[in-house]
């Protein structure tokens, strides 16, 4: 009896990791490295987590969790509340609807998907922030940021994959 309780707790804790890693990347994204120019290109790390978990375990990172992660990103990043909530939900919605083309596919193909979706999300954020402030935000920095996010995808996604294989048993539909 005791062991099943602990097993359940263990399973729950493991099942929380997709949301926990997304939230952690939101916070880590707030730390700037003392490299000249880093602040300009600071990648949106949490978007990588949203994309990855939307492909592999959308059941463990449902829409409301994505919404919360987006609000957290807005609160910490200083963007108007709702901007990243909407951007993350869009990414999640598109990825979940395209899961048949992305789930279980070679890593390079999944990355290629992110090469398309990452900058697309950057464009969406740019449009939203520009509309919010009724002025065109400097698009150059958005491009750099999208490029940095795409570039950081492989190591982070590989780490998620290895964690997923070790700690999160596949469900029937995944």
């Amino acid at each position: 009896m005791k062991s099943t309780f602990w097993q359940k707790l263990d399973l729950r804790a493991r099942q929380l990791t997709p949301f926990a890693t997304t939230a952690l990347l939101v916070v880590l994204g707030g730390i700037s490295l003392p490299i000249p120019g880093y602040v300009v290109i600071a990648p949106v790390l949490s978007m990588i987590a949203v994309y990855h978990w939307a492909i592999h375990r959308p059941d463990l990172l449902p829409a409301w969790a994505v919404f919360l992660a987006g609000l957290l990103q807005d609160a910490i990043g200083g963007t108007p509340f709702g901007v990243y909530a909407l951007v993350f939900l869009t990414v999640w919605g598109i990825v979940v609807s395209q899961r048949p083309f992305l789930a279980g596919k070679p890593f390079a193909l999944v990355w290629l998907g992110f090469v398309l979706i990452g900058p697309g999300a950057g464009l969406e954020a740019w449009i939203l922030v520009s509309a919010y402030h009724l002025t065109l935000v400097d698009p150059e920095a958005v491009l750099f940021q999208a490029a940095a996010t795409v570039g950081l995808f492989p190591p982070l996604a590989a780490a998620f994959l290895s964690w997923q294989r070790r700690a999160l048993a596949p469900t029937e539909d995944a």
Partner: protein
Amino acid sequence: MKERARQVHRIIQPIRSLAQRFTYLGLIGAAFGAMLLGKADLVVLDRLRAHITDVVAPIFEAISGPIAFTASAVREIQYLSNLESENDRLREDNARLIGWQAVARHLEAENEALRGMLNFKTGPESSTVSARVIADTGGAFAHSLVLNAGSNDGVRKGSPVVTGDGLVGRVLSVGARSARVLLLTDLNSRTPVLVESTGTRAILAGDNSGRLKLIHLPSGAYVAVGDRIVTSGHGGVFPPRLPAGVVVSVDEAGIRVQPFADRSRLEYVRVIDVGLEEALRLPQLPIERKAVARQ
């Protein structure tokens, strides 16, 4: 039994997917709603942001500490390897600065004498709070950073933030142990300034790029590359004569200013408490003066 479960599944599945779709659309609507609320400038959202920042501030502190330590260790090693040339440069600087010191002493004495003649009163003394930059979320959409000092340490909303180089920005929101600083380069930042050499008034505006725009100059004003831009003190938010930046280009597209404070090198800053109440009390002055006159 199995057949029955399948039937139940067949009924529940469409309802579940419909509910999921509604949830998704509802959340999209909520995101738009949050943006509209933010546009209405609700204090509640401001507080929420300050609270969330307060909660994660210890994590920021724990991680940014070692990063800052590593960076300073790397800098230290670079300094050690450049010690000889650095020494030569400092000797030259020292010789030059001794000359400037003489000039400054002379000016100070002259100033003192002139002030005495005019019966000039210096402005209210301002106090400062030192704080460490624990987070700079960077990116294209908001230029703000988080400090490890909040209302508990005496930081107040609206206070100017400076480094030894010059003005950094002003405090946007304050939590108990953290504060968010709006940088001069942010889209929402407008600072009343003067062109130091001519005394021309203008507004220094950010546009989320690394450089600032000088706007609202009076017609016929002359600004040249290399002019220093300092705060004017108008509006009472910033004390006068804080160095803000230097003009780097003047053309049809506008006047561009490079801020003195380098965002990527910010580690420690000072928050100046200028006492905004002083500025707010100013309109009452004529009445007091009248009362004195009647006596």
